[in-house]
Every structure is written in structure tokens, then in C-alpha cells.
């Protein structure tokens, strides 16, 4: 029997910063094709990742039924068990560990595998554990901690940005460490940027790599290559030029900011006898002083101008500093609170649509995300807040995506019990004692909204029945809640939850949302951060302790930590540029175009878009006898990974780059053979909030 093809609106809600429309073409319960938004403008077009979703759903490696470990931990040896046995075992282990060690011995390590409103992996697991007496948590965001901290200390809020549609009002945009063409950073963000450029917004891109974003957006010769980890030095030198040439907006600084004079004293070298001149910065950043002067003048004299900070530069040692320095520049140029400007803060706007509610966690114990492995290994004896005995992981390829994988492999041998919810046997899932198979997004119903830059809701209708024996995280926790006597965990159907979310989120017609698949929230004008604070400071102080933009932060002064000074400074990073070192190459591990974190790393259609390869400048390759396409070892004291070299002029000499997200595949010698870059990265957090510092990493490369 051949039925008609049904076109079912759904979506791709992984953690890339975008949330996109997918249309599943389904016949007889099978997805035959996937298309995207071809409706009214503005369309929400999916990228290469979401377009390949059919290969995710029907991947031969999908986990099909519950598994129990049958070999040594990490061996990947499992036997099939029934759902009843799996749920009874998990419930039994949860009870046993809680009774024996207390709730803080259970770590809920759910991650961003699904970023929707109902089946949102961190939300579902947190609701369960918090309703069951609490659990230990990981603290510190992997992606955005330093810029969120910097934004909070400077502006009093964690997020301060304009809608991307405001870019059309900018005469100049400085895209700093910004690679939205590959990372996505909001569906249509790059499309808006490109159209703004075509309509006359001049654009500068500052990045150690000549990215696809630089190629797309940087005006002729307005790509600036910079030594990784030195962004704050370039910014401070720009401030120097503005001061020296009288370009700073003194009236703005006087009226709206706190402590600019202390910053100026540092910039001019009054405090330390070292003026932060363009010549000083050239030696550090590799950016010619003439370019620094020109950039500073351009930014100071073109109004309005938007300084947009991406996240790469702050996933680094002292990542707070370039963010705070960028905000100081935004204030010096008076580009805050006006259309076309930008406060250079963290990009985020919360959605009006609620998520599955999560009650507070009765347990206060946390461990820093960046030090998770150290905390597992050392526990309370090492000064951490808990001894982890049971790890519950959902939507999180923890081992692969955190720094220092080899320490993580040791750490995962430590807890008594590991439970993993997954769609595939990821490097993390291989270490589980029990693996529970999870449905993909096309096998369940949900709502997705974007976490910044874009105001629409996507209705993700269920396109097909769950594959094999897969269940949703929510269905699994609902079963566990019954076994553990948690009342009220989930007393609605998925549809009932979603109908309530949509209504509370102000979406007028639920049935129309389901039928169309996308709802655009009405938006008369793009959001401008701090508009009221600038227009009427008497009645609208900034939400900081002083009511001003705190270029000098008394709170940071009180903290008294030399690595987060009260004014933004350039601080020489650990594992920064130092060619005298044994491992002299700076290694970047950016988000690439073939994964969303580690999702899609096993999807062939996406992988063949671009081979996974090490970016290396021909100059660095020549001194090591490496030819294009050679298999190389990338190594440092923490580990070794093997991958092919790509000789390209698109990366600064002295820097190499390997996209993160590719799945660990260790050989018998312990070396990774899949280019899984976190075998090399360092497990140290940023000072204020334990943010990740992946990009402060040195390595050496050699032919194999």
C-alpha cells in the first residue's frame, strides 16, 4: 500500500544557537525526505546539519534497546536487557546510592543534547532529581561563562545585546571572534549580517583564522588576524589611541560610567609605567600598529558602530578580560543604548514560552564543570564538595566535550554507577553501566525557540513513531518517578504540556502553530539594550551597584583576585604564544560546520561537507616536513590525537586549529585516532565562574 506523502512540520533544536524548521516528508510511517522552510518570509531555513536529519533517525548505529554493561567499563561491551530490568536497576541504584551516601553523591550531568521546551535534556533530568530530594550539579557554563560574568560585573545583567535586525542601523560592525557562518549563532544571523553589508554597513572581522565569516563579511582588507589569547591587548591599545587622539566620548563616559579614569591610567601606563601603545600591542597581538590605529579611529569616529563579541575568545584563560575591555570600548565610543550600536555584551534573550518547570535543588553541592574529572578522582579529600558515586548523564557527551579527555577516562572508572541516556554509543555512553536508548526529535512532539537572535517558536510535530524500543527522556523519568514514589512529576500528556506552554508564551492559536510549524512573535522594533538607561539615566539607572556602567568594578576590587582586576586588563595567558616551549603551537578547537557540539559527528552527509582536518599554515608545516593531507600526530603532555593536516593560508603562523566535537577513538597505545581535540585541551576554568578555557592550549604537530 502506498499512501500519500504527508509533510509534517518539525525542527532541528540542537545546541548551535539556531533553531530551524524541518519538514519531514513521511509516507507509510517512513521519512522519505526532509526539507525546510519554504513559506512566507522571513523563512527559517535549516543548515547542512538539520538537512541531514534523516541520516540521524535511520542511522545503523542508533541505540535500539536498553543495554547493561558486560565487560570492563569503557570497553563498549554491553548486553541487551528489557526496559523493566533497566528501569528497576536504575531505580534500585538511585535508591541505594542515595541511602548509603546521601543525595549529594548523585551527580546529574545532563547536557544540551536537546534544547527544546518539553524534552529539554537538562530540564527533564533536573525536574526529576530536584523533586526527588536533590543532587549534586556541575557549575560553570562551557560556552559563555566568561562573557556572562563580564556582562554582569559591567552592566549588572548577564545578557546585553541588540536584536540582530538592528545591524541594519550600524554604519560599522566589528565582528570580533565571531564566526556565525559556521557556528550559526542564531538562524538567519549571518543572512542579516550579509544583507546589512550589501546595504552599506562596513564590516571588520578579527579572528586568528580567516573564517568563512571573514570571507563573507569582511570588507576588502578588513580582516585582522590576531594571536589567540591577546584580544584584550588589542582592545586596550585601541583605547590608548582613542585617548591619545582625543577620540573618547568624554560626555558619555562622565554621565554613564564608573571608574573610567582608573582604566585610562592603566591604558596610559600611569599606574605601571607601561603605556599600552599600538607598538606594545603589535608585539603581543601580531596586528600591525598602523592597523590598530586605523581600527581605533574607525570605531571611535563612525557612529553608530556595533562591536559584536563572539564566544571563542572568552573560552580562554582570563576570558573575562577581553569581554570587559570590549565593553569599555563600547562606552568610550558612546555606542551603548542607541540603534546601530552595541554594548558588546553577552547575546541572549529569554523566550516568552515557558519550559518544563524545575523546582529548586534541595542539595547545594556543586563541582566545577571544567574540573569534573579532578573532582571525581579526588572528591572531598581533594577539597571538592562531594564524592560522586552515581553519575546520571542525559544529552551530554561529557567525556568527549570537556577538556582533558584522558583524565576524564580515568575519572569515569571511579563512580560506582553510571547511567547514560543516548541515541548513539558515544565515547561517554561507552562508560555507562546502563544505557537507555532515546528517541530523536522527529520521534516526539515539542516546541523550540532560539536562545538568542530570533523571535519565533517552532512546533516540532512527531513525524514518525519511536524507532526500535527508544523512549524520550521524559518518558523514562516518568517511569522512574513512579518506581521511586515521586508524585506529580509528570501528570500531563506531551500535548497538554505543549498547549499550556504555547498559551503562556502568548502564541494565540495552538492548532495553527502545529499546522504551520512556526510562529513569529510580533516585533515592531528591534530590541536595543539599555535604551532607557541612556535616554533617561535619572529614572533608569543601570542595574549595577553604582547604577553606572562599571568600567571599574568595586565588586571585583573587593574580590581582590589578581586575575580579575577591577578594570579590564591584558593578562598574559597560560599556554599562550611562546615559541620557545616544547609544544610551541597554539591550538584552537572551534565549533566547526560539521557538528553542533558533538552531535552530527557521525552523520556522513554532514561530515562530507568538509573533511575533519588540522588547519596548519604552510610555514609551520614546512618546518615540520608536513605536506597537505599528511597524517599527523597532534600532541602535548595531556594526550595525542591523529588527524590529517590541511595546509592553508587561512590560519596565522604559529597557530593550528582542529574543530571539536569529533568522537574519541583511542588505539591500544591510548592515542586518539579520530581527531578528538579534547585529549589535548586543558582542564582549568576561568576565574569568576569556572568557564571553559579550551583555546588556551599549546601543542606540537609531527608527521606520523
Amino acid at each position, binding site marked *: 500500500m502506498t499512501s500519500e506523502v504527508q509533510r509534517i512540520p518539525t525542527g532541528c533544536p540542537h545546541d548551535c544557537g539556531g533553531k530551524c524548521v524541518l519538514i519531514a516528508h513521511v509516507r507509510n510511517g517512513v521519512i522519505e525526505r526532509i526539507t*525546510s522552510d519554504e513559506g512566507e518570509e522571513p523563512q527559517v531555513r535549516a543548515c547542512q546539519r538539520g538537512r541531514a536529519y534523516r541520516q540521524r533517525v535511520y542511522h545503523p548505529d542508533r541505540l535500539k534497546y536498553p543495554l547493561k554493561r558486560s565487560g570492563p567499563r569503557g570497553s563498549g561491551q554491553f548486553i541487551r536487557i528489557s526496559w523493566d530490568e533497566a528501569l528497576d536497576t536504575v531505580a534500585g541504584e538511585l535508591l541505594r546510592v542515595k541511602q548509603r551516601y546521601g543525595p549529594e553523591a548523585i551527580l546529574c550531568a545532563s547536557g544540551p543534547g536537546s534544547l527544546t521546551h518539553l524534552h529539554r535534556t537538562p530540564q527533564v533530568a533536573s525536574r526529576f532529581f530536584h523533586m526527588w530530594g536533590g543532587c549534586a550539579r556541575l557549575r560553570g557554563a562551557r560556552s559563555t561563562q566568561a562573557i556572562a560574568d563580564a556582562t554582569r560585573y559591567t552592566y549588572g545583567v548577564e545578557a546585553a545585546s541588540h536584536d540582530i535586525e538592528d545591524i541594519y542601523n550600524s554604519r560599522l560592525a566589528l565582528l570580533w571572534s565571531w564566526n556565525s557562518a559556521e557556528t550559526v549563532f542564531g538562524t538567519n544571523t549571518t*543572512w542579516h549580517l550579509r544583507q546589512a553589508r550589501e546595504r552599506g554597513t562596513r564590516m571588520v572581522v578579527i579572528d586568528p583564522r580567516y573564517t568563512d565569516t571573514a*570571507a563573507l563579511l569582511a570588507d576588502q582588507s578588513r580582516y585582522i588576524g590576531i594571536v589567540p589569547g591577546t584580544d584584550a591587548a588589542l582592545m586596550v591599545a585601541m583605547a590608548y589611541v582613542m585617548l591619545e587622539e582625543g577620540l573618547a566620548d568624554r560626555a558619555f563616559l562622565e554621565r554613564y560610567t564608573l571608574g573610567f579614569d582608573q582604566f585610562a591610567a592603566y591604558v596610559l601606563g600611569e599606574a605601571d609605567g607601561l603605556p599600552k601603545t599600538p607598538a606594545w600591542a603589535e608585539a603581543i597581538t601580531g596586528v600591525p600598529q598602523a592597523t590598530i590605529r586605523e581600527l581605533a579611529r574607525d570605531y571611535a569616529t563612525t557612529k553608530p558602530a556595533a562591536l559584536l563579541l563572539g564566544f571563542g575568545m572568552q573560552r580562554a584563560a582570563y576570558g573575562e578580560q577581553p569581554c570587559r575591555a570590549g565593553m569599555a570600548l563600547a562606552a568610550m565610543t558612546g555606542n551603548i543604548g542607541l540603534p546601530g550600536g552595541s554594548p558588546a555584551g553577552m547575546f541572549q534573550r529569554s523566550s516568552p514560552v515557558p519550559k518544563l518547570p524545575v523546582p529548586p535543588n534541595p542539595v547545594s553541592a556543586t563541582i566545577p564543570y571544567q574540573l569534573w574529572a579532578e573532582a571525581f578522582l579526588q572528591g572531598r579529600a581533594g577539597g571538592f564538595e562531594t564524592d560522586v558515586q552515581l553519575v546520571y548523564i542525559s544529552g551530554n557527551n561529557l567525556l568527549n566535550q570537556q577538556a582533558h579527555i584522558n583524565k576524564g577516562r580515568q575519572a569515569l572508572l571511579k563512580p560506582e554507577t553510571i547511567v547514560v541516556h543516548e541515541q548513539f554509543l558515544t565515547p561517554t555512553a561507552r562508560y555507562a553501566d546502563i544505557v537507555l536508548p532515546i528517541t530523536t526529535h522527529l520521534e516526539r512532539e515539542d516546541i523550540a525557540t532560539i536562545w538568542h537572535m530570533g523571535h519565533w517558536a517552532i512546533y516540532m510535530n512527531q513525524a514518525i513513531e519511536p524507532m526500535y524500543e527508544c523512549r524520550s527522556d521524559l518518558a523514562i523519568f516518568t517511569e522512574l518517578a513512579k518506581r521511586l514514589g515521586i508524585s506529580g512529576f509528570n501528570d500531563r500528556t506531551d500535548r497538554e504540556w505543549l498547549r499550556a506552554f504555547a498559551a503562556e508564551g502568548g502564541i494565540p492559536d495552538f492548532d495553527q502553530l502545529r499546522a504551520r510549524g512556526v510562529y513569529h512573535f510580533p516585533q515592531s522594533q528591534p530590541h536595543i539594550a539599555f535604551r532607557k538607561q541612556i535616554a533617561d539615566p535619572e529614572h533608569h539607572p543601570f542595574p549595577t551597584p553604582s547604577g553606572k556602567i562599571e568600567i571599574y568594578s568595586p565588586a571585583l576590587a573587593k574580590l581582590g583576585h589578581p586575575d580579575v582586576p577591577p578594570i579590564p586588563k591584558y593578562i598574559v595567558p597560560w599556554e599562550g604564544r611562546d615559541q620557545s616551549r616544547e609544544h610551541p603551537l597554539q591550538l584552537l578547537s572551534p565549533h566547526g560546520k560539521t557538528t553542533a557540539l558533538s552531535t552530527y559527528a557521525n552523520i556522513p552527509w554532514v561530515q562530507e561537507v*568538509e573533511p575533519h582536518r588540522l588547519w596548519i599554515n604552510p610555514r609551520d608545516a614546512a618546518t615540520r616536513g608536513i605536506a597537505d593531507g599528511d597524517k599527523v600526530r597532534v600532541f602535548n603532555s595531556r594526550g595525542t590525537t591523529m588527524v590529517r593536516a590541511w595546509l592553508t593560508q587561512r*590560519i596565522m603562523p604559529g597557530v593550528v586549529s582542529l574543530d571539536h566535537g569529533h568522537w574519541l577513538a583511542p588505539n591500544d597505545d591510548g592515542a586518539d585516532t579520530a581527531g578528538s581535540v579534547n585529549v589535548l585541551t586543558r582542564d582549568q576554568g576561568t576565574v569568576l565562574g569556572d568557564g571553559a578555557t579550551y583555546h588556551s592550549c599549546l601543542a606540537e604537530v609531527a608527521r606520523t
Partner: protein
Amino acid sequence: MTQLAFFFDPARCTACGTCAVACKDWNNIPDGPVFWRRIETTEEGEFPEVHLQRLLRGCLHCARPACITACPVGAITKRAEDGVVLVDQERCVPHCYACWTACPYGAPQFGDDGRMQMCNFCPERLAEGAKPICVAACPLHALDAGPMDELVRTYGNGHWPAEYPDATAPLPSLIMTFE
């Protein structure tokens, strides 16, 4: 005679691969080396003065297709009503490759069966009044398609860059603009 054609703005292209993946999904092309549509990037210059050129790969449905002349069995034809170049896989001689040798653009593709396959301008979509899937998919709106005369009215005659093989003989149905 109407000639269906593509438009490509390389300056808008980020080589994200969405067109290639969308094409593979729509046409059910397995992963592997067969691509009816893809982008190639060439690189010039020395860091930091780098320049990228994006090249559109796939059948360009030429006005005077070299593949048709080269095919020894007449398996390739040009459809009268819209100028789309089509291959009859039943007639194609497996592992012959004469069309591939003749095509200046490397468009003909060969799967495991050794028979030529390539872009067919998404006939099911044309029938619905939709543009080819690669056009509808592009997140940067770098692609368009339609009758050549309409594309010329919208985008002008474009410009044929040096990176592409000669266009005077086959007259490919592609308009490209450059900044």
C-alpha cells in the same frame, strides 16, 4: 525556447554545504563521492591577505552541451521545452565516462553502477512550481533558478570568472555576479 538556468552569487556563499546535503536528501543520493550539487573553494594569497573563491559544481544545463556530443549511445538529451539536460540511465553504457571527459565542469557523476547521473533540475519540484531544492535550501540566498531571460532581467548577464573553464563553447546556463 525557454532555457532553465541557475544563478549563483559566490560572494554570498559560505561553503556551508546546505545545498549539497539538501540535494542528496531530496534525490536520495547515498553518502560518498557522488554529488549532483556542491561547492568547491579555492584559496589565494598569504595570511592575512587571503581571498577565497567559491565555485558552484553540478550540471549547468549548457546551451551546447559537450556531453551530448560525446555520448556514443545518445543517452543524454536536452529537453526541448526547458533546455534541461537529462540522462537516460537505461541507455547509458556503464563505466564509459565519455561525457565526463567531455564536460569542462566535471558535472557527470558515477555511482557504484557506473552509469552517469547528475542534476535533473528537480522535476517534481518544478511541477509544483517550486525552485530546485538547492535554491530553496541556501541559507544565504546565494542561489536562484528560473528561465534564463528572467534571470538576466533580475541579475544582469553576470560575469564568467577565470577560475571556471571556458564558457564560450558549451554556453553553460549559469549567471554569476561578483562584487
